[in-house]
């Protein structure tokens, strides 16, 4: 039975304070199947939000509803269908990947034969079949990350929360993971938090930008890009001019060319006569949003 259409997670006036510091305030968000790309500067509240959604931390105020049921009061309604990959997770170094995944499958409540089948599939999927019997302590950072991805997918989660999942992966593995997320997103809710805007660009069906614990932007990527049209400019400058221009404008990129430096700037008005409008990217959108919140002019 396809239950994906009924999947909804919703936060209502969610707030969290740590020893007087407001990490998240009055946060409202409603998600249905698809991938939400969660963007925000360091310390914006992304991990706090994800920890609360993952039932690790209780909010100071507000509620989280999973298909209409209160997760704060009864976290078990969500935990059995939840997959979570924290940013800085660890493993037991003396267990093999196979043993670690068997352990995680057991505590997720999966039965023997089903768990073994799933583990086997996931080891193939994350390309760890050959290393599956080796102790995790000898794995590289990327290999550990793949074990983390596998454990998050063990119980075929309806809600998948991944925090910086592509950190440490090589370009090939990163593309594989992006494709996997896209494949998964049709029938479940995926929350992807990352600083790598290109990961969001290639996978997210929705984007949320958090700043200082508040939701500032929530829209589809194409909407955001459309809003930025005519606000991104490029032109050639000399290396000597660059420092002053960086102080003057919101620079979203520089590229060395034979003729000098190609400067990419986010600005509502044309910065100089030589500047030509170019197609905006999500990175421009993100920088523009965060810069405005920091009181910079764009």
């Amino acid at each position, binding site marked *: 039975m396809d239950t994906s259409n009924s999947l909804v997670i919703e936060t209502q006036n969610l707030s*969290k304070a*740590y*020893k007087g*510091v*407001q*990490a*998240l305030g009055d946060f409202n968000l409603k998600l249905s199947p698809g991938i939400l790309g969660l963007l925000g*500067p*360091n*310390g*914006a*509240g992304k*991990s*706090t939000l994800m*920890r609360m959604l*993952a*039932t*690790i*931390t*209780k909010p100071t105020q507000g509620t989280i509803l999973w298909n209409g049921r209160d997760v704060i009061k009864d976290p078990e309604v969500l*935990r*059995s269908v*939840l997959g*979570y990959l924290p*940013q*800085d*997770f*660890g*493993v*037991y*170094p*003396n*267990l093999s990947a196979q*043993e*670690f995944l*068997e*352990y*995680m*499958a*057991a*505590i*997720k*409540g999966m*039965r*023997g034969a089903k768990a073994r089948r799933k583990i086997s599939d996931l080891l193939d999927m994350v390309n760890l079949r050959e290393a599956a019997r080796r*102790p995790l302590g000898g794995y590289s950072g990327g290999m550990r990350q793949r074990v983390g991805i596998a*454990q998050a997918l063990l119980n075929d989660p309806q809600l998948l929360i991944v925090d910086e999942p592509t950190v440490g992966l090589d370009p090939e593995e990163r593309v594989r993971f992006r494709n996997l997320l896209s494949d998964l997103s049709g029938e479940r809710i995926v929350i992807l938090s990352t600083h790598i805007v290109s990961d969001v660009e290639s996978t997210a069906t929705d984007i949320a930008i958090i*700043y*200082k*614990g508040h939701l500032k932007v929530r829209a589809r990527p194409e909407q955001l890009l459309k809003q930025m049209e005519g606000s991104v400019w490029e032109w050639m400058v000399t290396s000597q001019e660059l420092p002053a221009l*960086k*102080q003057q*404008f*919101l*620079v979203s990129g520089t590229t060395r060319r034979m003729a000098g430096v190609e400067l990419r700037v986010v600005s509502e008005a044309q910065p100089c006569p030589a500047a030509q409008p170019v197609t905006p990217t999500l990175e421009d959108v993100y*920088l523009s949003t*965060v*810069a405005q919140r*920091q009181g*910079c002019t764009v």
Partner: protein
Amino acid sequence: MNTMRVLFHLALADFFERTRRYRFLLTLAAVIYLGVLVNNGTAFFYLISGDLNSLVLRFRGVFNSAWIGTMTVLVTNVFLGLFAFYLVIDCIERDIRTGVGQIIATTPVRRAIYLIGKWISNFAVLLVLELILAAAAAVMVLLKGEAALDLGALLMPFLAVGFPFMALIAALAVVFETVPWLRGALGSTLYFFLWIFLLMAVLTWGALLAVVNDSMGTGASVNALSDNTGAMMELPTLKDPMGFNVFRESLFAGAAAGYPNERIHSMGLQAGPAPQFMVFDWPGMNWTPGIVCGQWLWAAIGLGLILLSAVWFARFDPSREGLRRPRGKPEEAKEGEATAPGKKGPRIALPSLSPLFSRLAQVNPFMGVLFAELRMLLNGRRWWWWAITAGVNIAMLTSPIDITKTYLIPCAWLLPLAIWSEMGNREQKNNTSQMVFSSARPVLRQLPAAWLAGVLVTALFVIAGAVVFLSNGDLPDLAGWVGAVIFIPTLALALGVLSSGSRVFQVVYVIWWYIGPLQKTPGLDFTTGAPQVYLLAAAGLLLLSAYWRGRQVRV
């Protein structure tokens, strides 16, 4: 959810994780050595007879299965009762340290189930040690050849007394770990005192029983050896968890049967070359369900404590407990502060990137590192900790000299335990070793700076002791004070560097402190008397630390 399956996998993964370490092999070696000491007659309990008017005689049993099994259990219960706790107490902390805990927190596994799984894992580790001791005991019965091997008589003390006590310790370790402030130095110290209290209570209880029996004229009765009347009807009786009072009456009766004219009234621990003993034949306990169930009640009490601790266990919620996370980014408690409006992200001008920003470091690099080490040792202490330290120092200055020397100064030598515990292992604990060890002169600059910072902080925290000794012209004790100020942080640094953790120092120091400065045992009290021995030891330990740190840096 299949609870048994979850419990099995929780315990199994944890058990494998611990037993596949190099350190576990060392533990096994130590336990086997303990077993050899017990079984070759170097360490066991003996019985004592005699009073003020007669010759004191010592008795031991024939080296049969019952005697060797019982002695192995009693001796190991005393020693493992202390060390087993420190061996297994890392199970929840490890889940926090490795970050596995935050993944577990998102699964349907319940707090109580998680804690019981950890308890089973702790118990399994200790069970391995007990089983090795049992096997060693069986080998020793065969080697001694004084009696035929009787597996029932040999193993019943383990099954009835050793295992439940290990189950209780395994549970206490879990309970201590559910309370964040009991995971560190304070927990190690508290458990040591709990162990001392238990040992004293057991011995006092036994002595009291002996006095009561003597006063009633009953003494040890031969009947206790064989009286099995109504065994099947017996209700479980809760005796001491170490099991001394389970065996006491039967052992006394066994000795009384062999030597009816002797008044056997107490037990003592033999450690070292054995003197002359009177030997009696002890066939072992008449094990009844009441005795066995009574001892296993301690395991049930342990389980009860675990279930109780599930109430306050924070389940890896970083907002409810001070989780130490060595990897990755800092806690999000800083959220909302990190991107202050004044700090413009994209347009920020590059600050000065000179690596020698501190004026002090520019003038003298060693002093720069020293001040940084001092800051790290002192930062983060709570106000009440400072208040207690200041209070003890003020009390030393204002109290009569005998009270200061007997109580306050020994107390002051324990207070900085948490600070010393960080020495030598901070880099591994906080996962900064790659950064620190790749900086300039980690062995010749950073390590000596860390050591000197420890010495200075130690001197500061017990400064009143020096003032008191100086004002009273007590130069020998002042010399002892200087020796201790140098020796303790050096010991902490050495054990921190060698073990890459704080637990070994905590255990060694607390035991040493209890025997030495508190009990004033000659030769072991490093705070008084001739400091030259400890200064020499400190020099050796410092060289050892430098050598070992050098190895760590090269790796």
